[in-house]
């Protein structure tokens, strides 16, 4: 089973979606900066999360995480 390691802290998740949730959820500067470095606006993701379902905010980030943070 593959896992995904948070690019800025020690958190390891089983799915990129869970890691996305962690990254948006922590919301501190390090996590936000990483999100911004991938071309996302944190507040937009958050607003998307709060106002709609289907986890659009998470999904957008999780695609990047899937590519970049997978560890064996």
């Amino acid at each position: 089973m593959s896992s995904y390691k948070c690019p800025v802290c020690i958190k390891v998740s089983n799915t990129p979606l869970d890691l996305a949730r962690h990254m948006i959820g922590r919301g501190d500067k390090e996590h936000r900066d990483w999100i911004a470095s991938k071309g996302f606006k944190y507040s937009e993701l958050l607003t998307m999360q709060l106002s709609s379902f289907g986890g659009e905010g998470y999904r957008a980030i999780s695609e990047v995480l899937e590519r970049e943070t997978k560890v064996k």
Partner: protein
Amino acid sequence: MSEKYSVIGKNVHRVDGTEKVTGTAKYTFDIVLPNMLYGKILRSPYTSAKIVSIDTSKAEKMEGVYAVVTAKDTIHKKQGIWRRFPELCDEEILCSTKVRYIGDPVAAVAAIDEYTAEEALNLIEVEYEPLPAVYSQLEAIKEDAPQVHDGVELNINVTRHIEWGDVDEAFKECDVIREDHFVCSSQAHMCMETHCAAASYSYDGKLTVWASTQASYYTQVLLAGMLGMREGDIRVIKPPVGGGFGGKFELDSAQFCAALLSKKICRPVRIVLTREEEFTATKRRTPIVYTSRIGAKKDGTILAKEIRGITDGGAYTGMGATALYLTGFFSSFPYKYPNYRYDGYRAYTNTEPTSAMRGFGAPQAVFVGEQQIDLIAKDLGIDPIEIRRINGMVPNYEVPGQAFIQSCGLHQCLDKIDNYIKGRGKLPANRGIGVAAYGFMSGGIFNWFDTPYAFSSAIVKLSIDGKVDLFTGACDIGQGSDTTLSMITAEELGVKLSDIRIHAADTAICPADLGAWGSRETLMNGNACKMAAADAKRQIIEFAAAKMGVNIVHDLDIRDGWIYLADRPERKVSYYDIVREAIRGRDGETIIGRGHYTPHRKGMISPAYSFGVQAVEVDVDPETGKMKLINVVTAHESGTVINPIGITGQLEGAIMMAGGYALCEDQPMDQGKILNPSLADYKVIRSLDMPKTEIIEVDTYEPEGPFGAKEAGEGLTNPTAGAIANAVRNAVGVTITSLPITPEKIFMAMQEKKAKEKKAK
């Protein structure tokens, strides 16, 4: 000795009853000390502004003014109740450089009387430079929103996530999914006694504070931190308190300013907040905006719930972050959601800070959850009681990774309410009954305050005549913990209630206790008191066993003043005689029993949960939308009932408060200014509007609680708003998703519904 208990379960006069009905109870509000001065606090008129300068010279020169304090007189610390997280300790109380809401304190004055103090406030010149401000949580998290606290970008104060199961997969298997949006408003605690404190700093460096508080231990510790004093040099005494409801366990401006002023001049200073300050500059219930999705199978089994909430935190953290935590947890109550996800965010805004209030995030969660359960039941064509039966929690249920529920009488409560509703038969037009189920905790396990003490402790000291002094840090703020704890102690020790004299919440003589919040006193402090009584009892019985010369196989017990052999009750000696002899026999050493309680291995939230179901009948005027509460029937279980009158009182009082939250209590704002900071404009339920109430007690026994008892105060505020919303839907067919449910909202929704129906034709 046929009945199980001698004291517990009996209707007794409260131990503080006669002093309260005769007006002889001395509240902090009544305290007058020799040489005392009267304090007043100057507060910010701006929602957000830089403090350019404060000139207190004119005020200081005024005749009758003895001291003026500003941030300059402090040690520049910030306080907060989540001490484990220093970044969340964000409140200076006396602002040094920036004010963050209308009501933020900037200076305080001590003068010969209140008139002089108030006039002196007018002489303090503060130059402000107004800054941009933000007033709602949804605005606050925008990229370009003004920052309430420097360095906290997007104004995100705290986040919280709870998850179990596989929510996304589960939704795929659902036959019906609902998504709804809800808005929960604010509410004022509206304690009858406003926040007040009297502080007396002596020349020898010791400080005594009388405070209208619901946690004298927190006041002591937080004051020590803010004043740079040792905890042991501060004594906080809690006289009778005129209500708390969650609004009085943080260090407040009255306590801090009175202490600071007193420390400056070594004279007693009393500060009583005005009703307006109480409304605008204390704390309030947390407003929350929710989006909630729930999915079920055709047979009514709920497979998944996903809920998101963003709370308006106001200007500071305080204890408010806990509401974010608890609303997420209680959104899963009281059902067995196999898959659950909660995302919560708390945003700072330039408004009065929000914090704990009776129910602490749960009434909001239940308003949302119980409406959605009714709505999905309707979609599925299932009876509202039935869907609750299908999914309701049961004894020995584990909330995955969160909590372990031992006793749970939810299903019995559902049966009782079902019977009641069926008994009502067909209702007249525009009448409806709505139900809501709920569960609540008996004290929090979390220790964000970072106390090294046990959560609750008690000491029992016996006099030579067998009379008992009970020392506990528990705070009776009107809910009756002094009586409940005295009853538990009397029962355990086998003496009469009148043999007990309780000394509570004086930090110098009582062991520490985290205070009255999260419905913790009965279970947590009850356990500590029971243990302390048992400890004293053991010492007496040891002596009695020797004295009576009984065979070692016999077990001794005490009841109604007699020490007797458990299996041969006719062999007995007088408790009162034995105590005298035991003390004499122990070289005159006082008999002291100690007890302490901290929950261990009980999950992350609470050691026990109580449950109930409430049915509210309403009548709606179809032409104006005006709704009247007719009757509220509550089936409730709280384990063994210690004090039946107390529970009835808690229940009826909760309906007044939670019914008010549903109907009329609100703190509307315009650009951060509360528009109704007076009792003429802030509406609460009065006697003419109070519905009839019925309580159906369901028997359960909580193994973790003292004599099987658990929570019976806060949980009762949870169901009412949701039940009322459901009742309105059943009466006139409209769903109101935002609080309060005003006649205007009902009327407008009915108009909309009519228009839609017309269109459909």
